[in-house]
């Protein structure tokens, strides 16, 4: 069974925020990172369906927001070794990511690429989509419009580009699909040359 990567700690009709779960059983302590920007993830709905969402932002900070991070690098204790020297970090840091809702699937398996009728429930688990699921979802790219104006800190054209890159990889570097995706982005941004250029440059 696939392992959840996070749990929803805030949810709305447009997006949800999930806290990354600590991977257990790893020998070496290492930083817990959010999933890739643009990655397709999913969560269950109480009626048996699933929502799909695109990772639009990630942060890591102290579990207790009043506790600021302090510098821990010294000598050859750098990067991952900092986590090795301070095993408590795994317990006192929180990594969160925001995912923008882009579609849902009914219990019957029917797939829709627009906002779901309901947000996913609080405390439900979040999973990364398999390459297979990503391939199926990205067959029709009309949902990309939902990523353009999320109101989040990541510019819409960067998020669209990051998502297309993620899907291109999940689809086994399908060049024909990428060409189609680029054309689609071109149509979405045809009235805004600067954003279009930024999106296409990020896709190169």
């Amino acid at each position, binding site marked *: 069974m696939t392992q959840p990567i996070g749990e929803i700690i805030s949810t709305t009709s447009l997006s949800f925020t999930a806290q990354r779960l600590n991977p257990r059983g790893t020998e070496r302590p290492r930083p817990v990172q959010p999933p890739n920007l643009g990655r397709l993830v999913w969560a269950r709905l109480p009626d048996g369906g699933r929502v799909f969402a695109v990772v639009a932002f990630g942060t890591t900070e102290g579990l207790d927001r009043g506790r600021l991070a302090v510098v821990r690098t010294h000598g050859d204790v750098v990067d991952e070794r900092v986590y*090795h020297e*301070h*095993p*408590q970090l795994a317990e006192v840091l929180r990594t969160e990511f925001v995912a923008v809702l882009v579609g849902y699937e009914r219990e019957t398996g029917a797939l829709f690429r627009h906002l779901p009728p309901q947000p996913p429930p609080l405390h439900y688990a979040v999973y990364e989509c398999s390459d297979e699921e990503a391939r199926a979802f990205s067959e029709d790219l009309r949902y990309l419009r939902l990523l353009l104006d999320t109101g989040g800190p990541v510019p819409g054209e960067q998020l669209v580009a990051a998502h297309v890159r993620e899907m291109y990889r999940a689809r086994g570097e399908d060049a024909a699909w990428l060409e189609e995706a680029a054309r689609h982005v071109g149509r979405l941004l045809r009235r805004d040359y600067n954003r279009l250029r930024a999106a296409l440059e990020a896709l190169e």
Partner: protein
Amino acid sequence: MLRIENLAEAVDALAAQTAHRARAAYWDQVLHLLQRLESAQLAERINRVKDRIPWLVARPTAEPPGARYPAPPSPRDYVAVATDGSHMAPDRHSPVRFLVLNIGKARIRYGAHPRAFLSSAGTFLYREEDLSLRDDKGNVYPIEGAVLGIVMALEELRALVQEADEEKIPVMALRDGSLIFWPLQSEETPLQDTLLPQITRALRQFHDMGVPVASYISYPGARDVVNSVRVWLCGSCVRRGTCEGCEECTAAEAELCTWLRPMRDRELFAAYLNPGERSAIFESSSALQTRYRDPWGMDHRIQFFYLHTGKEIARVEAPIWVMQNPRYRDRIHGLLVDQCRRGGGYPPVLQEAHEQAVITVEDRRMVETLVEQALAREGIAYVRSRKDWSKRVRGV
């Protein structure tokens, strides 16, 4: 409201006083003296005057009082455990009496398989018998003030025993603060008789598990060693509380003694120890100490040393069986230096235990709300005192 402008003059005077205390020439004399001190002579001098001086002195042990010891290497694989506690004391302004204890626990494995276990255990006490202590003579003491402090400390110590028991590789058990349960000193004897065996029993458990237990005091305020140096300089002045007009010591000695009087041990050792070094081991002269014997007769008297953590001077206390066992003593010393290196001058295991123990303002409000709601369900209105109301509302 504090009117700052009225304080300026006194603040300037404080700065002048601080400058006087930092005078290097005096320090040189004191350190010179400390280095020449011999344990036996100092112990003898202290014994001669001890009944006539009202404050604590540090008794020397076999180690020369002026000795310094570099940090022994610390094992690569080790476990540090610590506990800390906080509470919501029964509130005089509240219509119902309850007490919340929260014990924070931190157990951190270092080395090849690093991992941390952080947790806390909260208790809600409300029954009359839980809100008071009964001594062996049947006297009842409400758990508040000093008694609450002792109850907390005891709970922390018991939780520390349990945490330490979870691990196999070299363990160090740490408590924040002192192992000499000072508040107990001013309590009545029957209460001491009830609580001391519980304390020493917990200490005995560490001994039987083979876990050295110690307590750590950051920025300690004690003057035990400074007092011992003053006794050495001239027991007579010390006894009379002033060096003026003393016939037994020279003017220079009297001057030095006067200068030493406000000093604290941490200032003395800051001028003396290098980073990582510890002082000699001393023993507290607290009267309570003579009763640190567990029900099976084993001695748990508390001894201490000062440690240069790299950032400050800390006081480390441990039972005599830890301090006089070179393996345990060196483990405590080496591991504390390692902990302070990792924690920027303060042991991370203590910091995390504290973080787990904290009851935040929001937590407190939440507990109050819970109590309020539960009472409301029983049809009881939660009415607090008007004084409390005025503090909360702060109307203008």
